[in-house]
């Protein structure tokens, strides 16, 4: 019988920045052995940080146990514990951090604090095969256009106010839609949009490589309340205008940096219309288009584990007493030691 090779190393990653609690286990070679996600679905309204944290605390044990089981790895075979240290919602981050600290001290292994945004890019590179991309990271909390330059993932463009995913979610809730597990609000908007035909004018706000969605959302909600247009047409227009803005700034970053890959990630990356728009732009610039598969584009533990491995291999670990969460830890504050150039 084959015995597990004793030198194989594993990292366990815990993600808990917002509404998902997730545990991923990866081998140091980058093989995903487990990636278990448990989403907190509010009964109504958006994410309540305290309620989300309560959910995380409740499911933590179960999710960890399931991850170990799926990976076929014993706790003693974990060599590093990584957790998302920020940015995100305080109560949620602290719940994940507590679990990570407890696990690391119990197992007597090093702890690594991972930046959530860096992790989204790194897992994208791992699973979608990008090497040095311009990344569009779009989710409920983030809207960032980034590319690697001199030791860091520089932020070339970002939202000046709310994230695009947040904008779509708020609009959907205003329209009376309810998200559920497996069917997020964004997917509902996408479905409705596919049946829309008429483009209703909405503010198109691009400032160089930055964007703004707050005035756009207000205008869309006002149109909704007036009740003159069908919800299908409104969703269609919402997507067309918002995604054209995202695609334009990504193209501007691509033209500016002259990179040859475009990586699309984050929860909104699942949208087929956005994918097709970015693919078209990548093609025009002879760049390769890579989209991160859903289970790795959403918030997930695997991305934290993988980034933890990269950091650990470059001797970045975090002493317990310094493992405070960082609610406002920007992507471009993180030295990225593992990327050359």
């Amino acid at each position: 019988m084959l015995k597990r090779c004793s030198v194989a190393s594993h990292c366990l990653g815990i993600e808990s920045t917002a509404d998902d609690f997730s545990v991923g286990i990866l081998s140091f070679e980058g093989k995903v052995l487990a990636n278990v996600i448990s989403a907190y679905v509010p009964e109504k309204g958006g994410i309540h940080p305290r309620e989300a944290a309560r959910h995380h605390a409740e499911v933590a044990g179960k999710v960890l146990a399931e991850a170990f089981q799926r990976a076929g790895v014993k706790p003693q075979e974990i060599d590093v514990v990584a957790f998302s240290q920020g940015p995100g919602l305080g109560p949620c981050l602290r719940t994940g951090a507590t679990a990570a600290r407890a696990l690391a001290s119990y197992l007597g292994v090093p702890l690594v604090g991972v930046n959530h945004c860096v992790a989204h890019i790194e897992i994208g590179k791992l699973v979608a095969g990008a090497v040095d991309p311009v990344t569009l990271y779009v989710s409920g909390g983030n809207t960032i256009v980034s590319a690697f330059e001199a030791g860091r993932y520089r932020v070339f463009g970002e939202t000046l106010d709310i994230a695009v995913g947040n904008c779509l979610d708020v609009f959907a809730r205003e329209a009376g839609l309810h998200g559920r597990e497996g069917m997020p609000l964004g997917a509902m908007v996408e479905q409705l949009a596919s049946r829309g035909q008429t483009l209703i004018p909405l503010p198109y706000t691009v400032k160089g490589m930055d964007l703004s969605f707050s005035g756009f959302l207000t205008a869309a909600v006002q149109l909704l309340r007036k009740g003159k247009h069908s919800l299908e047409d409104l969703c269609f227009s919402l997507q067309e205008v918002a995604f054209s803005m995202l695609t334009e700034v990504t193209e501007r970053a691509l033209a500016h940096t002259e990179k040859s890959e475009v990586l699309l990630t984050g929860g909104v990356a699942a949208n087929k219309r956005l994918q097709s728009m970015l693919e078209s732009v990548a093609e025009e610039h002879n760049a390769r288009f890579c989209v991160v598969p859903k289970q790795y584009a959403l918030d997930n533990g695997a991305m934290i584990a993988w980034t933890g491995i990269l950091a650990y291999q470059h001797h970045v670990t975090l002493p317990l007493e310094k493992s405070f969460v960082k609610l406002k830890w920007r992507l471009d504050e993180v030295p990225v030691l593992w990327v050359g150039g």
Partner: protein
Amino acid sequence: MLIRKGAEANLYLEDWHGRRVIMKRRLSKKYRVPKLDKEIRFRRTIHESQHIHKAKEAGVPTPTIFMVDTAETTIVMEFIEGKQVKLILDDLPPEQRQQLCRHIGELIGRLHNHGVIHSDLTTSNMILTPEGRVVFVDFGLSERSVELEARGVDLHLMKRVFQSTHFRYAGECFDAVIEGYARVVGGSVSGEVLEKIGEIERRGRYVSGR
């Protein structure tokens, strides 16, 4: 001859009635639905030519426009000999770098005083000519406004460009821009704009100090 493929337009260097000109063509984007695509290209072609003219009134060097073709969403304009500030800024001696940034600040001040917001103040859109003039190009995203908010967003973008593209000298470059800006718009206005920039930054995601 295609010399630059930008995000929203292609630039061609052409011979046009015996002149070397830049033809800026806003080509249709496949990713946009036709109605939105047409509207954006048309609006930006008109705005760009208007604002290039307005900038001249303000005393900011811009290319001379020879022809505007709204049907083809094409502008024919003077070819500016020189180098993009983006390419040379980091390699200048510190003194000259600061001087150049102060001058850029002055030009931005003149635009703002005249009610023009550039909306894409990047070092790629500034050309340093062999005679040492700085010429502003690409007014496609420009708008008319005298509001503090618009001025703040305009300069905030400049700050961000320094941080992403000229990160080694970001602080000193931006300070020099503001110094030049203040010379033109006055200390109290520039102070208000600076305050606004702080407010805009705090509005963004994950900013310490909020």
